[in-house]
């Protein structure tokens, strides 16, 4: 049971009415650190932050560059990626195989007749995504007999395949890009590698086919940019373990019903901390993925570019989850007409793209609302963008950055609380005084300490490091590595794994 329940009447309410909360939070109530763990790793899965993963990468790296296996590098990467994906959840491998092989068949057919088979291939993938991601909107997850037809029930009862949102987008990119170029069909191994390449399989970055396929060629250890890879990997682990996992200790109090015990000012503080956490978590994952891919000779797209210094919402979307934004722009916004069909249609397109972008994250009203609000902000700022940019004032730019950060942070509440009612409840509590006389205590010095790396990074410390402090750079990365190990927060999954 959540510990705070004992210190205030609201908590007594929780205690009495939420017997389940005791079960749910039993783990953290017993840790002594009082940290709820809403995103515990799925049992058996190989996480980027596990020792199994480190051993896995080391073994695959050794085999990959060993001369006897050089001829089979791509096959080895495919097999390793399938092992990685199936580790702990082998029942999902057939589904992945169906998705990849199905897409390959549609690709071959679409290269002969694009008009028919390209839409069919896209529909095939979207149906896969819709089936697994949105089926629980229509059926109860715990229902015993769903249809009475065993094979269908088996499919319906399969859990959400990890990374399905990402590999479905890879599949669509593959179909569109290669059929547009009218290229020769790639081999099945290459298609598999593009889709299941393990650093990007679970949470991206979403790599465009036209960017990935040219990189499929023999790789040599002499070409590996070890320092660059090490920088990405160490930065990624530092942001995940030190920043995101520690901040998660605090932001877990944003979950229902714990948030009801918070003071109003702590609700606000946690919103900003979650903003830093989700960035550190996803940036950390992307950095690790980019670094590991470099070890195997592949360059994945950059996924983040200091999003919280954006001075407009449109700029934010060129800096946050760049691979998703550019995917949506290329494969959805532009085909819908983009900004070429008048103001009303442009605005409608923005709303459609952002709404669908929200739903892509999950089947919940909160995700849809999050996307639509972002769409609305994009629509509202469009008429003023040019005139605002005409003012060359640092102060105005700072005010705009603050406003964008504030809006983006508040909208993350819909991410943190996928139940729309809970999200609204949290929001409402930000504007009225708290009633719990004994609220949880957040250590503000620790909050600042854990948020500091994100702030420093956004203040442009990276460029200072590259120019004036480059001599100290390796030592700084070494200390970051030690801190990531010593000061790591309690282990939790990457936030984007759930998508």
């Amino acid at each position, binding site marked *: *049971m*959540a*510990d*705070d*329940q*004992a*210190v*205030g*009447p609201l*908590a*007594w*309410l929780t*205690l*009495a*009415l939420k017997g389940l909360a005791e079960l749910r939070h039993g783990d953290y*109530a*017993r*840790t*002594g*650190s*009082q*940290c709820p763990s809403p995103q515990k790793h799925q049992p058996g899965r190989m996480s980027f932050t596990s020792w199994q993963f480190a051993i896995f990468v080391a073994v695959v790296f050794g085999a990959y560059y060993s001369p006897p296996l050089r001829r089979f590098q791509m096959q080895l990467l495919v097999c390793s990626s399938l092992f990685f994906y199936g580790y702990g959840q082998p029942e999902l491998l057939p589904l992945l195989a169906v998705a990849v092989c199905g897409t390959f068949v549609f690709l071959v057919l679409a290269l002969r007749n694009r008009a028919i088979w390209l839409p069919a291939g896209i529909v095939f993938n979207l149906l896969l995504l819709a089936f697994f991601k949105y089926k629980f909107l229509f059926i109860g997850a715990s229902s015993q007999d769903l249809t009475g037809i065993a094979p269908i029930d088996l499919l319906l009862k399969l859990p959400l395949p990890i990374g399905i949102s990402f590999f479905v987008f890879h599949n669509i990119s593959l179909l569109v890009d290669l059929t547009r170029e009218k290229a020769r069909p790639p081999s099945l191994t290459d298609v598999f590698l593009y889709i299941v390449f393990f650093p990007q399989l679970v949470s991206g970055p979403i790599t465009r086919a036209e960017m990935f396929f040219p990189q499929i060629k023999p790789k040599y250890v*002499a070409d*590996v*940019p*070890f*320092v660059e890879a*090490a920088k990405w990997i*160490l930065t990624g682990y530092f942001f995940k373990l030190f920043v995101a996992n*520690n*901040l998660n*200790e*605090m932001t877990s*109090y944003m979950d229902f019903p714990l948030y009801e*015990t918070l003071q109003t000012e702590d609700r606000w503080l946690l919103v900003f901390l979650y903003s830093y956490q989700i960035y550190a978590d996803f940036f950390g994952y992307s950095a690790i993925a980019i670094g590991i891919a470099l070890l195997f000779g592949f360059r994945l797209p950059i996924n983040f570019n200091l999003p919280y210094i954006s001075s407009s919402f449109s700029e934010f979307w060129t800096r946050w989850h760049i691979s998703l934004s550019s995917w949506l722009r290329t494969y959805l916004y532009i085909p819908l007409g983009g900004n070429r069909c008048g103001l009303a249609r442009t605005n409608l397109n923005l709303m459609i793209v952002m709404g669908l972008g929200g739903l892509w994250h999950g089947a919940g009203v909160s995700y849809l609302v999050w996307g639509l609000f972002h769409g609305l902000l994009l629509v509202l700022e469009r008429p003023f963008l040019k005139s605002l940019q005409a003012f060359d004032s640092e102060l105005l730019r700072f005010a705009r950055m603050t406003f964008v950060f504030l809006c983006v942070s508040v909208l993350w509440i819909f991410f943190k609380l996928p139940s729309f009612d809970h999200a609204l409840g949290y929001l409402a509590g930000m504007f009225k005084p708290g009633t*719990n*006389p*004994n609220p*949880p*205590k*957040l*250590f503000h*010095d*620790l*909050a600042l*300490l*854990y948020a500091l790396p994100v702030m420093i990074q956004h203040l442009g410390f990276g460029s200072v490091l590259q120019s004036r402090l480059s001599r100290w*750079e*390796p*030592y*700084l*990365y*070494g*200390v970051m*590595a*030690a*801190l990531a*190990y*010593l*000061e790591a927060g309690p282990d939790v999954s990457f936030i984007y794994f759930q998508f």
Partner: protein
Amino acid sequence: MRQRRDFPWLVKCASAALLSLLVCAIATLRLGGGQELPATTTRDGALLALNRYVREPIPDVVLVGSSLTFRLSEEYFETPRLRNLALAGGSPLTGLEIIAHQSQLPKIILVETNILSRPADDVLVEKYADKQRVEPLFLRPLRSGVASYENWMHKPSSHSQMAGELDRLIMQAPSDFDNRIYVERAVSQLDALDPSAVVRMSVEIMRGLIPELERRGAKVFLFELPYIDQVEKTRAAMVTREIVHAAFPDPSRWLPIDVTRSDLRWADGVHLDERSALITARSMEKNLAMRSRGG
């Protein structure tokens, strides 16, 4: 070759990482693991009190309990060697088991019996059960630094330092804060709760632990903190009281708390406010002295 260029960078990086770890390992050997705070807590200083308990000389008197007892600050008692190991949101059993796992025991252990509807926190018990296990391999420099800062900023005062302030507090009139809404909520929640099963289990554990602690030389007293009248009559409070008294019927086992109820206030409907906690602490201390003298 690229590797030849990269090698010095990687060596420097690895050296810095290893050196940092080495420094933290040596610091652990020299200074201990350091006191760490969770990033967020509803236990206020309880974990620090546990840290102090396992590191410092064994006190004479120890209180264990839930958040109700947590309100009885150590500085309210004149007894200098007294520790309050009550855990907000926790069970008295957690503190009791931690004490039982130490090689040395305090002379007197006071056990709150109001909240027995929670099991002991096994992880916490295990963490503090063995002094060796409390020490981590590496000092966590940042957390330890912040914990030291917080300890320094919120250093508990002694009774003598606080005496004047405490006397002023007790001279004040009882608070007139309107707590009706909180009382109503607490009553409805506690009425909805039937803690019988867990309370029986907790009592069984206490019946095993208390004779064992007394065999090793400690004296154990039970006490019940006063609730506001409406809460006293709730199902959860009555069931708990009935089960505990049936299991420990001997009046000499109980430390009475003689207070004028009209003097007490429960700001949130359940927990004593500061002044009331002070009144209660003084009564407990007085009765404890009488018990120690055999009165």
